[in-house]
């Protein structure tokens, strides 16, 4: 299990992370989302032991990850910026990975060859960004890590390859009970793969919740209410807007509760819809505020 407790990181006067805490369990996929500059990559660099925490701790099964080769050997990291030796091809990088990672499996490496179909002799720097990313997955998955830390993992990949790679990772979760931590701006895709999401903002983790609970307890309602109808006071309204006669509400409650409470007002129209992760993100972080509308 990965545990982050009260993690704070400052760069000069800038606080990149402030008392961030969360956990990630084996067999679960945890999504890390947040606006640009929220601290996602800084957090990830702590998870893989690149940064030393200023305060707090980052633990794998109870042991700090920083400067701990035993912990790092179990972590597979796909960074957003890929790094390979200048002239190395996949074959040469494979030998590097094999010598560093005790879990490396030649059999796994060979079986992944058919998925990736890349020239193993060509220098990796001659590959496109997407092909380099594929190479990174190929090498990392061959190391059979217990924990995958993925920073914008499918950025730059074509749709077929994105699906193939998510399929492989989901297979690893089901088969080997691996822990996956993934940051992405593609919320649509995260919805399919995550058990839980951590929403970050300004260096803090503002929400850590199972996706299922989050989606079961936040609903969007589109309704046309009779003239002069007042919303029941017990309803927890996150957002309310009126377009023509249609009121759109974001409510913090279950779909059944929203339906029950609003039906008492005899609405002319009442539609209760589940919220997408993207909508949750926008409403939680106030992206629908007047600020963003002023620009247009």
């Amino acid at each position, binding site marked *: 299990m990965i545990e982050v407790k009260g993690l704070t990181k400052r760069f000069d006067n800038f606080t990149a992370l402030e008392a961030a805490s969360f956990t990630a369990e084996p*067999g*679960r*996929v945890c999504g890390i989302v947040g606006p640009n500059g929220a601290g996602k990559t800084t957090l990830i660099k702590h998870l893989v032991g690149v940064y030393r925490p200023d305060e707090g701790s980052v633990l794998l099964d109870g042991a700090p990850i920083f400067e701990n080769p035993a912990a790092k050997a179990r972590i597979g990291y796909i960074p957003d910026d890929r790094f390979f030796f200048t002239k190395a091809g996949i074959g040469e990088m494979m030998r590097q990975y094999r010598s560093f990672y005790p879990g490396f499996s030649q059999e796994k490496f060979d079986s992944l060859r058919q998925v990736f179909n890349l020239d193993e002799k060509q220098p990796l720097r001659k590959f496109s960004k997407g092909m380099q990313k594929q190479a990174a997955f190929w090498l990392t998955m061959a190391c059979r890590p217990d924990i995958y830390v993925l920073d914008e993992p499918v950025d730059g990949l074509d749709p077929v390859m994105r*699906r*193939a790679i*998510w*399929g*492989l990772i*989901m*297979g690893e*979760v*089901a*088969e080997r009970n691996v822990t996956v931590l993934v940051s992405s701006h593609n919320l*649509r895709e995260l*919805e*399919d*793969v*995550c*058990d839980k999401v951590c929403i970050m903002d300004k260096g803090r983790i503002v929400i850590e919740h199972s996706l*299922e609970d989050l*989606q079961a307890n936040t609903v969007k309602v589109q309704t046309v209410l009779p003239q002069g109808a007042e919303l029941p006071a017990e309803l927890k309204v996150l957002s309310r807007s009126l377009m023509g006669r249609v009121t759109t509400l974001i409510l913090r409650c279950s779909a059944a509760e929203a339906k029950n409470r609003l039906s008492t007002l005899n609405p002319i*129209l009442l*539609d209760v*819809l*589940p919220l997408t992760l993207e909508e949750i993100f926008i409403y939680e972080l106030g992206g629908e505020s007047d600020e963003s509308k002023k620009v247009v």
Partner: protein
Amino acid sequence: MRVIIQLDYRDARPIYVQIKDGVKRMIATGALAPGERLPGIRELAANLSINPNTIARAYKELEQEGYIYSVGGKGSFVSQETTAADAQKEQAMQRFDSAARELLSLGVDVEELIRRLEK
């Protein structure tokens, strides 16, 4: 077996519900016969590129509803007693519900629907 569950991202239903409905449809149409093994969780997760826990949840609920049963270590199988007719009925009911919802939202009142049913 070929996995014929299709996920529709424009669909408002949560993914686990789409999987449940997909399996029910396969049972209703006979694409899955009583006693037949369902695709394994790992296989389906890799195939659809979705979280295995989501599939496990769908299977668990299908089991509670009696559509399938699981044998430890062997996987999940289509129940014998779930006749195709039952699943088909359930499917038709769902279509009926959504048609009724649509009609109500178009301003047709309940009495009119009842009159139509009695005809």
